[in-house]
Each structure stands twice: as C-alpha cells, then as structure tokens.
C-alpha cells in the first residue's frame, strides 16, 4: 500500500518516537524523545502540529488517558502508529536507502565539513 503523502522531517521523527515509546507515547514523552535523538530543543507546539498532520493523514490514532493531579487534572492523549504510518516510515526509509546508494561520503572529515 502506498501512502498518499510523504513524511516531512519532523513528522518522521515524531512517528518514530511514537513507534519507539509504544504505550507511553504522549506529548511530553514524544517531545523528550525527539530532543534526545536530535540534540535540539523541540517546541511542544511543533510536536502537536506534527501530530495533528499525522492523525489527519491516518498515520496515527489517539486516545484520551486518565486525568492526573500532576497535570492539573488534565488527561494525557496517547498516540499509536497505524498501518499507514508504518508503510509511510518504510517508504521514507527506502527513499533514504536509494539516496545513500553510491553516495561517496568517505572523503568528508569526521563530523562533517569544517
């Protein structure tokens, strides 16, 4: 099955974070995972904008959790990767693999171009 739209960079990272976090994938944990992986701060607004896009495209689904006192009585929204999301991740991976094919990166100094 071919997904209708290709993933943007942040969308892909968010999707991978959800796949990795599984049952514990909600706003804060997704943001922390993305920040850990990229070593860059990620705004919660950008994460939610990506989540909204992904859910609109049917790549992920969400459910409301229980409200907790530490969050001021507000519930968490847990996210889960759907089949279309997995297909989109596979396609993104294939594209990268194709792009890497034959690319000579050996001449670059360690850590990239100075």
């Amino acid at each position, binding site marked *: 099955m071919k997904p209708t739209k290709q993933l943007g960079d942040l969308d892909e990272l968010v999707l991978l974070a959800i796949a990795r976090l599984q049952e514990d994938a909600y706003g804060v944990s997704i943001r922390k995972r993305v920040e850990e992986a990229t070593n860059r701060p990620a705004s919660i607004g950008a994460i939610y904008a990506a989540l909204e896009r992904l859910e609109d495209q049917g790549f992920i689904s969400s459910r409301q959790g229980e409200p907790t006192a530490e969050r001021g*009585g507000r519930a968490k929204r847990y996210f889960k990767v759907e089949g279309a999301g997995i297909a989109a991740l596979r396609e993104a991976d294939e594209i990268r693999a194709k792009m890497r094919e034959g690319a000579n990166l050996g001449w670059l100094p360690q850590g990239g171009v100075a």
Partner: protein
Amino acid sequence: MSNEDPKGRVHNDAIVKKAERKWRAFTRQIFRHGHGLTNDRLRAKIEEYLKGLPVEEQEATYTFFQSSLRGTDVEVYHDTDATFTAEMTTEFPPRMGEYVLYLFVKKEYRESLLGDLEQDYQEVLEKFGVRKAKFWYYAKVAQTIGPLIRPTLKRFFKWSAVAWIGDNIRRFIP
C-alpha cells in the same frame, strides 16, 4: 492497587472503583478550575467533598487518596481517625497564558497540550520558583502557538492570493 486504607480496613472492589470515579471527576474540576483559590479554600473543598460521600465510599477513597495526589505539591496528612485534610500549595500556570492557548489549539488536543505544558510548568516551578515559572510559561505559549497557527495562516494567504488573482483576471474579461 491495594484496597486497604491507612487504618487497615479492606474495601470492596466495586465501592473503591465507584469512589475512584467520583474522586477523578472531583479532582478534574478542582485542578482545572481551582485557580485563584487559597490553600485554605482548596483544603475546605476537599474536606467538604469527603464529608459529602457515604461513609463506605469515604473510607474507600482513603485507599487511593494519598497516592493520587503524589507527585504534586499537595501535601496530605492524616489528621484524625475519620478525616483527612490536605495542604494545597500547588501553583497553577497563568490563566492568561492558558486562555491564549485556548484560542489557538484545536479542541481535541487542547486538554492534552495544556496538561503537557502544566506538567513541565510544575517541574520549572520546583526548580526556579513562581516568577520564573510564570515567565517560562508565557515564553512556551508564544513558542507553541507559532507552529499551530502556521497551517491556518498558509491556507488564508493561499486563498487570499487565489481570490486576488481571480479578481484581476475578471477585469480583463469583458
């Protein structure tokens, strides 16, 4: 979860679940709309809530009462044989910041996004104090709304451009 209250009484599963449902609804209300309440007023509200329950549900509430408030700034202590009181020292995020988010965040994500920010807010509050935490919250609100309104603005400008082009083309058609 154990159904044993701090006095060693074991409670029926169904009663504990019923008490839990009621407690959740109550805390949702009090934590969401508790802004501006003094600690004494919040304590009074919890006491009033507990007194309003039938005895068996009140006792069942004590089985999860303390653990449900753990991780917050709410300090619970055992006062007398029958009642618990709570010392509420929780600081809530600035309401104006929350209101701004209400204006821009999609309804489905509103509760979870505000909750996520509040979870981080409590962390900052603990480390840096109220004033810096409030400043942090406003900064986060400003940072958060940008990516959320970008698609709406894009759509708006796209359709404005389409309308403008259409309007100009129409001028050339006799």
